[in-house]
């Protein structure tokens, strides 16, 4: 439904041109909650602003339902933006207007009659759980409540796509959770496709079904969240997903035999203990980041295998025999390479 083809954005700055985005290709299907994750400066904000043409891409196309947004005139883009709405890190509510007036704003901009706009806005405030705050001003609300009002505002024009630009980054963990629940609810009940821009891996893990990792303006990895998280292929991804792991590797980077064990929905069982008993290999765990979903494990574990290369080979044979577990020899960790 949304497709980015060969999207590039070049900024001209005083220090010369900056490639904010380099040949991005992404496909976001209807109903997806698509996470775009990256460190600050990776180009996330630019990318999301290209999707609704707040930033004009230098090159490439943005297709929504097959329509090239770059080919639209100003008026048509304004129309299109009612179908692709946006929420922000700093909520960006009008501070001099009540919550109700804030939610009514996009409808007024679309020339919907006041009575109708008011009714719709009241319904939406109810949807986001703030029907009694209609006549309050944003300054009287907490951050989480302000974001709820912003979500109601974003839903007012019945969009197909909701862009969330670091929407929970200014909120505490509990409020973040509640807002993410709300977004997931909206995605399910209203069938709105959601694109989530974030630097927080927990956000992606909590609500996204697909994810793209952005680094220095490039998509370095993308796919199903479970797949990307359990088997990160690039250092950028590892740094984002398991920041604690890279430290562990660094500590043990000098010498030794290291194995990376990847759990991709394996049945939870005491693998390391069984390997010690059955093969006599006392592996030590350098680092681990696994998450259980139901009784299945996702994530990975980094092992230090003592002994000879034969022991290493036996460990590999043993572990690879377990269903839904992959194993690979960890190359010497290169701290510089991962230092992004």
């Amino acid at each position, binding site marked *: 439904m949304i497709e980015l083809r060969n999207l590039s954005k070049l900024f001209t700055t005083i220090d010369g041109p900056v490639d904010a985005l380099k040949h991005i290709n992404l496909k976001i299907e209807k109903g997806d909650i698509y996470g775009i994750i990256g460190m600050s400066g990776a180009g996330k904000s630019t990318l999301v602003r290209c999707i609704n043409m707040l930033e004009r891409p230098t090159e490439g196309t943005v297709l929504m339902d097959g329509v090239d947004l770059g080919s639209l005139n100003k008026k048509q883009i304004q129309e299109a933006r009612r179908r692709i709405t946006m929420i922000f890190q*700093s909520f960006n509510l*009008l501070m001099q207007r009540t919550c109700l007036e804030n939610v009514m704003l996009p409808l007024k901009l679309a020339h919907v009659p006041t009575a109708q706009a008011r009714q719709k806005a009241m319904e939406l405030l109810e949807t986001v759980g703030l029907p009694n705050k209609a006549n309050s001003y944003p300054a009287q609300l907490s951050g989480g409540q302000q974001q709820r009002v912003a979500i109601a505002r974003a839903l007012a024009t019945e969009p197909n796509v909701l862009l969330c630009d670091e929407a929970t980054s200014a909120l505490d963990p509990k409020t973040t959770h509640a807002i993410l629940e709300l977004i997931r609810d909206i995605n399910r009940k209203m069938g709105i496709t959601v694109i989530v821009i974030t630097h927080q891996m927990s956000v992606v893990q909590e609500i996204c079904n697909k994810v793209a990792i952005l680094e220095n303006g490039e998509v370095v990895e993308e796919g199903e969240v479970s797949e990307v998280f359990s088997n990160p292929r690039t250092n950028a991804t590892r740094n984002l997903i398991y920041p604690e792991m890279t430290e562990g590797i660094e500590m043990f980077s000098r010498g030794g035999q290291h194995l990376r064990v990847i759990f991709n929905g394996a049945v939870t069982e005491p693998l390391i203990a069984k390997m010690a008993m059955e093969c006599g290999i006392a592996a030590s765990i350098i680092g681990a980041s696994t998450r259980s979903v139901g009784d299945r494990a996702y994530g990975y574990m980094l092992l230090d295998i003592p002994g000879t290369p034969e022991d290493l080979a036996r460990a590999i044979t043993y572990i690879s025999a377990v269903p839904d577990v992959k194993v690979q020899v960890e190359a010497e960790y290169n701290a510089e390479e991962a230092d992004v």
Partner: protein
Amino acid sequence: MNFANAFTPERLQEAWECLLTEFPFAIWETLYSTLLATFFAIVIGLPLGVLLVTGESKGIRPLPRPVMSFLNVLINLLRSVPFIILMVMIIPLTRAVVGTSVGTLASVVPLTVAAFPFIARLVESSLREVNPNIIEAAQSMGASPWQIVTRVMLPESVPSLITNFTLAITTIMGYTAMSGAVGGGGLGKLALSYGYQRYRFAVLYLAVIVLVIITQVIQSFGTWLARKSDKRLKEK
């Protein structure tokens, strides 16, 4: 000049009578020329101030660079001419508009010309205070530039605009006093022609006191209104 003689009981008595007879009309003249000039200055200066913000290269509706340069130069030029000289310089314009260059109504023309560039700059600074993220949010909702100005930028800057317009009114009132030197009416004229030129210093001081009181009242009211209108300060 003998200030000691200015405050004898007779002179004070005279000033008191003047306060009752001459002052009411002078106050009325000062107020109406001030408010009328402020009104016209806002009518011209407000759109101009909006253009100064929206028209710049990173604004919501950029205008050609020469147009922006022209606006800026025009405003800076008018702002740098001292009011008392501007008044004399534009006498032909005043005659063309009002038919005469003398009197309180005529003074509204130079007052407006002097005040609109000032108002334009004040509006510009008020609008620049609007959080750019909120403007971006409006753009993301599909707002046109006109809608952004009328539904976002101006409403969001109301408290700041009130504060700045209050400043403008008190400044323009200061100008009306100067216009007393060149044919304008009001408290300034009273102070100059009655108090200064006829050595009735008690009247001069009285006129100044009245001006100070009016300024105080306007300023206090403006400050109160700006605070009251600002929904960001509302207690939870």
